[in-house]
């Protein structure tokens, strides 16, 4: 659905999962996550209007194929490569999560501090304009400090009110930032829902030769998606852009990119879907979200009283196994459902006008934030965050760092203070811990390298990325 982002849709759905059993609720959200990532590509291919930012790359070759009367083939390629990418991402989660969690059990406050710093530095440097991301994440850090501090229980920024004494939950903030602000954008937009051209889905299945040609690119996209998806701040937007650029570099048909190259469609789609499973690796094993969507999943677990982290695998082993199985099933099920629905999707999208979708989103967001805490306070926070989010979007401030820092902030604070207590107030203690020191070096590199690249003599690298 154009305009309704993945994070916004999942944020809206989160309150519905409160009354569900934990596993059912999480798998419901994961399935939605997986489905909306693919759904964004359908509108990008058919209407040249990406349903979500990460699907924007799919407009280059997907829409070119649609214009050439090959929409069916484009949708099949996206579906096949997305399914394979999603399964590789899920496999990555299954293979890596348990050993990583077993290793992370030995992590102390110093290592967690370093991991949180890594998350924050990645968020700041990889999410758009660094200065704006810094402001956004600092606001998130401040919001996370409202309420009692984690060590001495000193009350902070409560302004004497009872409502703030327990702190600000990030779920209403998230609903406001992503759903309400987006609803406001949609309501005031005067765009008309585009109409999908007629197409034949079933007859568009790619030939065996074409599929064989695409294998390398699907593998490339999946690999890059997994690599980028695991890193905090990486996200599917970066993964799809990077994989498109990489596919163009390695392809022998560079000139076809942007004019309907199947490789230009398959690679970013595989990368996009691979990030779904990959983003869950740090979220489940370390409790550190890699993207806004994984932050929502962490929030969903916390709603059910489950704290993500290495102990999740020992204390809630069955739940974790259920989530892993759920991700695999959701990936396959989304593809099967998409196969059935794609022929009708053009008509479905045409009947929905963005302005009225915005109205529905707005009311659902207010009700959802109300339902989350069963009080008006949650809705008040959501509306305030929605207004702030509207202006943040307007001035191009990234929203994800604010929400992610609200999750990472408390982890950072409690661990850095515990570490300093253990080290007797000596900050050099961090450098005596090899794992923590290594992670801090990576975090520093994430800040220094992009800055060094920016300060280098100019040549237009962005044209290489877009190059279409």
């Amino acid at each position, binding site marked *: 659905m154009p305009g309704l982002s993945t994070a916004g849709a999942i944020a809206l759905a989160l*309150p519905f999962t*409160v*009354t569900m059993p934990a596993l059912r609720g999480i798998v419901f959200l994961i399935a939605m996550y997986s489905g909306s990532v693919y759904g964004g590509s359908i509108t990008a291919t058919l*209407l*040249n*209007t*990406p349903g979500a*930012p990460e699907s*924007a790359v799919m*407009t280059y070759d997907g829409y070119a194929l649609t214009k050439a009367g090959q929409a069916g083939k484009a949708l099949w390629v996206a579906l096949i490569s997305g399914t394979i990418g999603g399964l590789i991402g899920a496999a990555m989660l299954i293979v890596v999560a348990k050993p990583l969690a077993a290793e992370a059990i030995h992590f102390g406050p110093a290592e967690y501090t370093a991991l949180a710093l890594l998350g924050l530095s990645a968020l700041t440097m990889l999410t*758009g304009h660094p*200065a*704006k991301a*810094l*402001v956004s994440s*600092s606001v998130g*850090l*401040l919001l996370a*400090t409202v309420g009692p501090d984690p060590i*001495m229980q*000193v009350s*902070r920024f409560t302004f004497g009110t009872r409502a703030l004494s327990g702190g600000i939950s990030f779920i209403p903030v998230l609903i406001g930032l992503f759903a309400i602000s987006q609803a406001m*954008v949609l*309501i*005031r*937009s005067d*765009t*008309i829902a*585009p*109409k999908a*051209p*007629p197409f034949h889905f079933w007859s568009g299945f790619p030939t065996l030769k074409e599929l064989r040609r695409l294998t390398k690119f699907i593998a490339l996209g999946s690999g890059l998606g997994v690599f980028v998806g695991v890193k905090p701040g990486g996200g599917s937007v970066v993964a799809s*852009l990077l994989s498109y650029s990489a596919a163009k570099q390695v392809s022998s048909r560079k000139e076809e990119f942007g004019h309907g190259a199947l490789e230009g469609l398959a690679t970013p789609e595989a990368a996009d879907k691979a990030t779904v499973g990959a983003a869950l690796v740090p979220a489940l094993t370390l409790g550190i979200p890699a993207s806004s969507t994984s932050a929502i999943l962490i929030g969903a677990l916390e709603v059910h009283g489950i704290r993500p982290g290495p102990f999740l695998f020992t204390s809630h082993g069955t739940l974790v196994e259920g989530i892993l199985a759920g991700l695999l099933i959701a990936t396959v099920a989304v593809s099967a459902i998409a196969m059935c629905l794609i022929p009708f999707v053009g008509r479905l999208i045409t009947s929905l*006008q963005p*302005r*009225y979708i915005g*109205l*529905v989103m707005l*009311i659902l967001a*207010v009700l959802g934030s*109300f*339902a989350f805490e069963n009080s*008006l306070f949650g809705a*008040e926070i959501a*509306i305030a965050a929605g*207004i702030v989010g*509207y202006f943040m*979007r*307007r*001035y191009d401030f990234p929203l994800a760092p604010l929400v992610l820092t609200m999750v990472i902030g408390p982890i*950072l*604070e409690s661990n850095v*203070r515990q570490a*300093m*207590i253990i080290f*007797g*107030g000596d900050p050099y203690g961090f450098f005596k811990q090899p794992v923590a020191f290594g992670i801090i070096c990576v975090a520093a590199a994430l800040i220094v390298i992009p800055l060094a690249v*920016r300060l280098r003599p*100019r040549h237009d690298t*962005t044209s290489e990325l877009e190059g279409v």
Partner: protein
Amino acid sequence: MGGRSSNTSEKRRQIQKPQIDNQVTGGAIQEPKTKRPRGNLAPGYTGIILAACIAGVILTSHSNLKQFGTQSDPLGPWFMPWIGCLGIFFGSILLLFHRTRSKDKDQMIEEFGSLKEPAIWIALGSLVVYLWAMPYLGFYLDTALLLGEFTLLFKLKLRSVILVGLAMELLAYLLFIRLLRVLIPGWPI
């Protein structure tokens, strides 16, 4: 650096949100028709200075400096708020620096109208009023008023708004009040 990063930011935006308002009619694909109301991409000086001032006021008025660095807790409970405020402060300075050096200060974001449009301010303000009035008017009446106001403000189709409103109120009743047992103030108290 400033000019280039701004350029990069603009190009990225073009990648992420290409041609939102394209139209295709009757199966024949037309080229995108873009309506681009003007908006200023970089935040104004006032906004930046205001953000820095707010950060400063919060920092100085609500943090107890004496609680820094005790024996048992070397960093203390006000360490993290300080870091947050310093982050906002340095971020604001960087933005100010960037804006001063940036050549293209008047870039546009497609989806947003000008802040001079009163409808935007009225709509945002009415969200606050909507929430404030909900306990007094009840969810159903309050929502109907909000939808009515939006219909006038943004020239929405009355029939569609009524349909959306009825569907949402039914959903609120069945799903939230009946199924999820949310204590929404349905009617005026």
